Each structure stands twice: as C-alpha cells, then as structure tokens.
C-alpha cells in the first residue's frame, strides 16, 4: 500500500510539475489512470493520422518531384532544385547568434561652434546632446548580437562603437520567451520605455539627431540597468502596462553607491487600427529617480568656469502618440507617419554652486524647477524609396527657483544656464532608400537652442545595415 501511494505521488508530481505538494487518494488515483488512458488513446489516434498522412505523402511525392524538375527546366534563373530539407550545415558555428551591424557616417556643416553648444534654460545632461563634429565623421556604429539561449530565455547585446574609438554597451539584456498571460520580462541594460523615440535605436530614427526634448529630459536616450515587467491585456484594443526598476545610473538620475533601486518608470500604452489604412498608438510614462551631485559646468558672473551640482528628486511625465497611414495598409509606395511627444519634468532639491571653490566659494541652497518640451514630426514617403519629413521642436525652460539667488547670496548672472528661454528648432529631411538595408539622408535645420544664436545646420548621412534582417517595429 505504501509503495502504491509513493508511486502515485511520484506520478502525480511528475504530472503536476515540480514544487507541488500532493496527497493522493484512491479516487485521485483512478482519475490519474483515466487521464493516462486518455493520453494513450489520443496518441494512438494521432499515430493513425500520421500513418495515413505518410501514405498520402508517399503517393504525391512522385508528382511533386516531377513538378519540381519541370520548374527547374522552365523557370528563368531558377538555379536551385526543389527541396524541403532546408539543411543547415552542421558545425561549431551553427548556433552562433544573429549578428547585425549598422554603419553610419555623417557630413555636418554647422554655422555655430559645436564646442559651445548649449540648450539654454536646461542644465547640461552629460550625454551626447550636441550636433556632433563639423565636417566628415563616422557616426555611431552599432554591433548587435541576439539569439535564444534556451526555451526560456533570449539574449541581446547591442554595442555602440563610437567614432572616438570608444565602445559602449548600449543595450545588453535577457528576456523571457516562454511566458504566457501576456507577460514579458527583461533584465539587464535596456532602453527605457519613456515615450516613443527613446526606445528606438538611432539608426531607425527619421532624423539624424534626437528631438531636443529627448536631449534635455533623457540625456538624448536613457538606457538604465534594471528589470522590466510588462503585461499585454487580453483585449482587442492593444493595452500594455509595464514597470521598470533600475539603478538610475544615467541622466536624469546619477550612479549612486546604494543597495536596491534608484529609479522607477511606469508606462501604459494603448493602440489599434482605424480601418485597414491607419494604425495608432498612445503612451504615457512616468519616471521617478534621484540625482546625487549631478554636476555641470557654467560660467558665473565673474567669467570663471565653475562646477555646480544638483542633488534631489526628478520626476518626468512623457505623453507620446504615433499614427501611421498607408493606402490599404501597404506602405511600399506611399505612407505617412505622424509622431509627437510631450515631456514635463519637476525637480526639487539642493543646488551647490562652485563645488571646487574656484570662484566665489562653495554655497548650497534649495532648487526647484518645472520644465516642459515637445516635438511633432511628420514623414511622408511620396514615391517608392523617397521620403520627406518635417519636425518642430519646442522647449519651455520655465524659471527655476534658485535659493542662492532669492536669498541674495548670488545673482542670476551666476547661473546663465538657467536663463529662462523658449527654444525652438525647425528641421527638414529628405531621404533616399535604395533598398530596405540602406539609407542616404539630407537634413537641414535651424536650431535656436543657445540663447541669442541660431545654428544653421546641414547634414548628409548614410545608414546601412548588414547581416540579420532588422525588426519592423511600430
């Protein structure tokens, strides 16, 4: 009897999977037997069906071969014979990950000195937010590897090879692939779901550079180290909710020596179709993080370069929308893409002036600001391979509340970077796509990022993709 119970437990455990505590009664035992019988019957039925199919296949194989050889004889340029083997060469490299490489080069003509680039009204983010070098230069080269690891995980690494001979891990993450109930999980370094463009790699952007709002609020592009959990609702309309917990290593946060999480981002997305021709998506995200000694350089009233730093809380809301249209939903000939994002950020904390005591001495007081910005852009493919686009950027710096100025300790002239400014930029783009894998682009922009100086920019760019076929992300 004990033996029987033990065996039943073992069978039940094997069926129910690990980690399940079971107590088996005779009734359950009978049920188990029935299930096993049922399984047996089901398999027998399937084997019968397979045998039937095999016979049929044998009958038709001869015909198929005849047709295949006929095709070979008649079709012009048909070099390969029919085969369903799909044989892949065996070897040590058979399981190599999918590799793709993005080559990217730019010719820039800028009327203002890029070294003096500034987006007035916003503290510099420390990211690569400038317009880049004048003249010919290699832009970021992207090297991506990805493959399924086992039935449960998939891994991706995207390395950015900088023109200055640096290598950065742009993204490096693992994700679950066998999850159900609409769940998705990712861990590692990945582009944050903060708005629309942040999650898209630069080579897939419709313009040479990022929107100004992404530059000032996310340091161009935010990729944090952390964990993402998201859930797609079981609805006809696309509803996705998600949360990211990260270390807050990059702007607007800072790397801190701290256990636990340093940043949290929540996002919700809604999307669907309007008829066969139009698809849309709306998103809302909220990023909370803290900065500790987030420093930047500025010129104070004495003309001395000083280092200032901010410590405190940063909260960012991003609202984004994308609408894509193509006649009958077939984008090959004509298509139109409209996208826009609105950013709003509040920061509260302490601002320390002249951390190195290089000018008027180190002083600290409260700081708070409420800043916003948005952009809207439209890109139209007016004939196969040719697209034209326009983008409008606007930033509203608001007026920062500086305790050091309000108390009379220092003056507003000591913080020129916080001068209230309404930044605008107009950008025009024309690109030619010889194939799905290559793009040549001309971009003209009038950039009023710096107070009192308009930067007239001309860019010529190539973007080419080699290797594994890229994803057609929405």
């Amino acid at each position: 009897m004990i033996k029987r119970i033990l065996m039943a437990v073992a069978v039940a455990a094997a069926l129910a999977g690990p980690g399940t505590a079971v107590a088996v009664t005779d009734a359950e035992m009978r049920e188990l037997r029935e299930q096993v019988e049922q399984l047996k019957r089901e398999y027998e039925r399937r084997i019968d069906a397979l045998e039937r199919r095999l016979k049929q296949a044998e009958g038709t194989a001869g015909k198929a071969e005849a047709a295949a050889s006929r095709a070979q004889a008649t079709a012009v340029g048909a070099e390969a014979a029919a085969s369903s083997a799909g044989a892949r060469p065996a070897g040590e490299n058979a399981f190599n990950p999918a590799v793709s490489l993005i080559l990217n080069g730019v010719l820039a003509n800028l009327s203002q000195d890029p070294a003096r680039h500034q987006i007035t009204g916003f503290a510099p983010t420390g990211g690569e937010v400038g317009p880049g070098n004048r003249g010919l230069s290699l832009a970021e080269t992207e090297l991506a590897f990805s493959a399924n690891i086992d039935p449960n995980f998939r891994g991706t690494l995207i390395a950015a090879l900088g023109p200055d001979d640096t290598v950065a891990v742009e993204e490096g993450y693992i994700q679950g692939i066998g999850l159900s109930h609409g769940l998705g999980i990712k861990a590692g370094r990945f582009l944050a779901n903060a708005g629309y463009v942040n999650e898209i790699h630069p080579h897939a952007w419709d313009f040479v550079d990022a929107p100004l709002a992404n530059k000032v609020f996310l340091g161009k592009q935010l990729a944090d180290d952390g964990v993402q959990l998201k859930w797609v609702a079981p609805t006809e309309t696309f509803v996705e909710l998600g949360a990211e917990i990260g270390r807050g290593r990059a702007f607007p946060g800072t790397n801190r020596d701290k256990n636990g999480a340093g940043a949290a981002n929540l996002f919700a997305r809604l999307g669907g179709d309007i008829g066969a021709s139009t698809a849309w998506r709306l998103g809302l995200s909220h990023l909370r993080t803290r900065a500790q000694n987030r420093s930047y350089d500025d010129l104070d009233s004495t003309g001395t370069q000083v280092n200032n730093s901010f410590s405190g809380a940063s909260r960012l809301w991003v609202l984004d929308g994308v609408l894509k249209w193509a006649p009958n939903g077939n984008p090959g000939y004509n298509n139109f893409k409209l996208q826009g994002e609105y950013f709003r950020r509040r920061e509260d904390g302490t601002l320390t002036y002249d951390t190195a005591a290089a000018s008027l001495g180190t002083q600290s007081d409260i700081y708070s600001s409420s800043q916003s910005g948005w952009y809207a852009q439209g890109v139209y493919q007016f004939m196969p391979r040719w697209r034209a686009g326009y983008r409008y950027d606007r930033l509203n710096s608001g007026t920062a509340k500086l305790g050091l100025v309000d108390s009379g300790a220092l003056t507003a002239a000591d913080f020129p970077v916080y001068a209230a400014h309404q930044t605008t930029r107009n950008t025009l783009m024309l690109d030619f796509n010889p194939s799905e894998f290559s793009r040549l682009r001309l971009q003209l922009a009038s950039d009023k990022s710096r107070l009192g100086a308009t930067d007239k920019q001309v860019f010529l760019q190539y973007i080419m993709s080699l290797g594994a076929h890229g994803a057609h992300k929405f």
Partner: protein
Amino acid sequence: MDMGNAMKRLISSMWPAAMSLLLMALPALPATAALKVLACEPEWAALVRELAADNASVSSATTALQDAHHIEARPSLIARARNADLVVCTGSELEVGWLPPLLRQSGNARIQPGKPGYLEASQLVARLEIPKVLDRSLGDIHPAGNPHIHLDPRNIAKIAQVLSERLAYLDPANADTYRARTTAFLARWDAAIRRWETEAAPLKGLTMVVYHKNMSYLNAWLGLREVGSLEPKPGMPPTTAHLAELVARMQTAPAKAIVYAAYNNPQAAEFMSERTKIPAVMLPFTVGGSDRAKDLFGLFDDTLARLLAVPK
C-alpha cells in the same frame, strides 16, 4: 525622500489607474470558446475557415492588398497575437521583419516557434529557388527558398492535412468536426485541381514577365515560363533603367503577358504594357485580391480565368 518610499508612492498613485484600465478591458474579453487563430496571410485564414468553419474565429494579419514582407508589428497585431491559440504563417522568412518581434511582444507561450500553436506552412512543402549563394547584392533573397508557396494548389492540400491535425490537437472537443471537414474539403479540392489542370492545359509554355518572384509555384504547377521581372533584384522596386532594358528585351523576344499581384503597384506594369503592347494582367494572388477570389476556390478560378483571357 527615500527611493523606497518614492517607489511605493509612485506605485500607489498609478495603481488605481492601472486597475481601472484593467476593469475597462475586462468586458471586452471574448466570451466564446472558439479557437482563436491568427493567420499571417489571407490564404491561411481562408484555409482555416474551410477546415474549422464556426469552431474557430480567424483573422489575418495582412490583406490581399498588402505586401506580407513589409508590414510592421503594429499594436493591433500584438493584441491579436496575445490572444491567439494558433498562428498560421508562411514562414521561410516572408514575415521575418515583423513576426518574430510580434511573437516576442505577445506574452503568449502557446504560439511560440516549436509549440503546437505555431504552424509554418512553407516547412511542409518542397520549396523552389533555394539560393546557392546568400548575398544581399542579389536582392532581398530568402535563404529557405521562395516563400510564396500557396499558388500551387497541391501545396494547399498538403498543408490542409497538417493544419487539420493541429486544429484537432488544440481543440480536441471538435476534433471529429475538423477531420470530417478536412476530408470533405480535400475531396472537393482534389476535384478542383483536376478541373483546373484540364482548363489550364492551353497555358503550358505561356511566357510572362512577373513583377516580383511571387508566381514561381503557379508557374511550376502549370508549366508557365517566367522570362523576366519588373523588379531589378528581388524586393527592390522597379527602376526606370531596368524597365527600359526590359522593354528593349521584349522587342526581340516578347512575352505573352506582364503579370502582377493585386498588392503590387500597377504603374510599372502599365508602363511596360504601353511600350511593348504586351497585356498587363493583374492576378488576385491571394484570397480577397479580386471580387471573385472570395475563397481559395475562387482564387484559383479567377487566376486561371485571367490568364486564359490572355491572347495566344
């Protein structure tokens, strides 16, 4: 303010919004127990309808007016993939740009490659034009061979048998219905194939210029001869230089027809037709591509009728 507190506050502030979204979403849950099938192309949606009738609710990710290679993993498709019990696609990299990201974003374990809920039709038939050399200078070529397998109706028959077993496996309660419908469908289909082959006998050897290499299986089945394509390389839009060269070639060795699919832009074919006086023939290509191509039978009836109307 400590980060832990910040997060707690953040979560508690977003929680009501998340819950109300969820509650809004719940009434939209489909109440029927029907098997939910997402087909990548209309031909597979039509085949599922033949075999499953009302036991499955079927939708197609693309229409006959869309190029299945070039669509995107748009939000509505993610929502449909998330709820699907079965995904039926052509495979062989036809959907390489959008199906893998769609499956990854679906959060649906049932339809991942290797699972019973994932069926790649082209794996079940002999493929033509498997390239010997893989190099993108040859255009957007498919390493596993030409993926446009459905225009040979004998392929549809093979796929129907596997699809039927798959439906029966996923929905055992209706297994007998699927098998019975499949047997009936195959009987009608085999009869139709014999009829089509008789009707199409005069088409044997018909020379044609295609738009894209998407007619190869039709050609192989009926013995049509493809003598050129409007695309200079597979997947690359026609260029004026290439069309001019093709026009010149047609002066010395004219084809009988210029054939393009419903989803191809007719401009290039009409341009060629005007200059060479060779008739341009639009083929429905898949179910829904023309008024007559309402189902799989209509697709082949209409395709043959349009080809037979070409002057000899």
